[in-house]
């Protein structure tokens, strides 16, 4: 469903070239959940931002559902069926939770459908439907709304960048359950959390911009034990 071939990404830093992703080749299939993991700064967010078109690869290509999307705009990719939940949710001046859910689902929602989107992420619609998406919402609330928006799009490919960050321990199980209930689509979750690694069908380990290993948790276990990834294994 999503195939990435010979993908590189580099930036100019002072006068020298800095390679952030190096020769990435990978395929993601429908009906599976993938977890991209790896140390801070290894290039996970960069990779998913390239998939959805926020960043443009230096070279290489991306094929989604048989279509080369390497040079499409963000909205064109989104409308082909790719959703994305940001690691750092964006805040707005003047847009409400309801507005964003309407945009995400592509329709005007009544209270009960807003309720169903928000209850999936453990929020009560009546408390949030008319709240502005700004800094008056807590970090965890913003994060949950971010996930609700991505889910409201009902896409074939869902990408979440560290969705569990800032979500409290009590709700964490609900979140993993939510992800494991996302069937018939392809899910890519960037995460450092053991629970998410455990529920993934396949784990992609990224280190220094290179895919070090792809496989199941048991296959990856020895790699996660290495010192740089020690905290993942805990």
């Amino acid at each position, binding site marked *: 469903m999503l195939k990435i071939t010979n993908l590189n990404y580099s930036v100019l830093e002072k006068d020298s070239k800095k390679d952030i992703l190096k020769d990435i080749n990978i395929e993601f299939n429908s009906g599976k959940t993938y977890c991209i993991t790896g140390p801070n700064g290894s290039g996970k967010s960069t990779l998913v931002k390239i998939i959805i078109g926020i960043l443009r690869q230096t070279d290489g290509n991306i094929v989604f559902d048989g279509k080369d999307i390497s040079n499409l705009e*963000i*909205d064109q990719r*989104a409308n082909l069926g790719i959703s994305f939940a940001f690691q750092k949710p964006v805040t*707005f001046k003047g*847009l409400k939770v309801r507005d964003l859910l309407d*945009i995400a689902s592509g329709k005007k929602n009544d209270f009960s459908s807003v309720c169903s989107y928000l209850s999936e992420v453990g929020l009560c619609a009546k408390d949030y439907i008319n709240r502005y998406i700004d800094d008056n919402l807590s970090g965890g609330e913003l994060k949950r709304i971010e996930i609700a928006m991505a889910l409201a799009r009902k896409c074939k490919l869902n990408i979440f960048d560290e969705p569990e960050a800032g979500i409290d321990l009590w709700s964490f199980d609900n979140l993993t359950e939510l992800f494991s209930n996302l069937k018939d689509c392809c899910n890519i979750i960037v995460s450092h959390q053991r629970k998410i690694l455990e529920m993934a069908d396949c784990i992609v380990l990224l280190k220094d911009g290179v895919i070090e290993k792809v496989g199941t948790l048991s296959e990856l276990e020895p790699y996660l034990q290495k010192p740089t990834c020690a905290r993942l294994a805990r």
Partner: protein
Amino acid sequence: MNDIEKRLLEKLTGLHKMPSGAFNIRKNGTPLARESEKDIEIIPKKKKSGIDIIIKDGVQNKSVHIPVIITVGGLDDLVYNDFYIGENCNVLIVAGCGIHNNTCKTSMHNGIHSFKVGKNSFVKYVEKHVGEGNGSGGKVLNPVTRVTLSEGASMEIETLQLEGVTSTVRKTFAKLYDNAKLKINENILTTLDQTARTDFKVDLLGKNSSVEVVSHSVAKDNSYQIFKSNLVGKNECFGHVECDGIITDNARIVSIPMIDAIDSNASLVHEAAIGKIAGDELVKLMTLGLSKEEAENKIIEGFLIG
């Protein structure tokens, strides 16, 4: 009333019919309809054009609508509306002017409003400005608002000008006595070669008086806006001005702050931020499937109307 007039009136008041309660409708420089009620009296001025609106003490949850519509070109309308609001009231006042000009001659409306608000009263004042019609003649609106808030009185002013007004100079003067509170939300959109100038002067005279001004403005194309505010703190008081502007194309917004804490216990702040639409907001909406243009419009709509 014809369809154009009805539509203008609806844009100003949000109502499809005649307002209930007290009202005064002015059309093309002359009074069209007027209605007083028991505790709210509307009296036409004798020596100049305009009305006195007298609201008795203790009037609760009542409204007064005084919209102005202009549907001809070449009109220069000047009107004085003076509000006298008693003590312990709670009222909504809806004003505003809509100009539909299909001619090549400029029409303008100069509405001079004054509000004397009695002790412990609360007034919400909503003022909308609309310009439309496809003639080359200008649509010019120059409102002046003078506010005096007695001890413990509070007022919320909400002004909205969306597109179509060729030029505007808006002046607001306020005097606040002990414990008085003033809140102003101003929202302005200019396009093409339009200009908008806003001038606020607020004298914080009383102890614990406070003012909060939030201006959200969007300037597109070649339009030009100047936002000037002047807070003077003559007592232990609090003042906050926030001028937030979005510019696109070749438009400009200039913010001129002036704050003068004459009393050393006055706390006054002016914040201004002017720039293009935030890139991350655009990107987020595009990941939800909106085109760049749709995303820009959504962001601007939210920013102005909320």
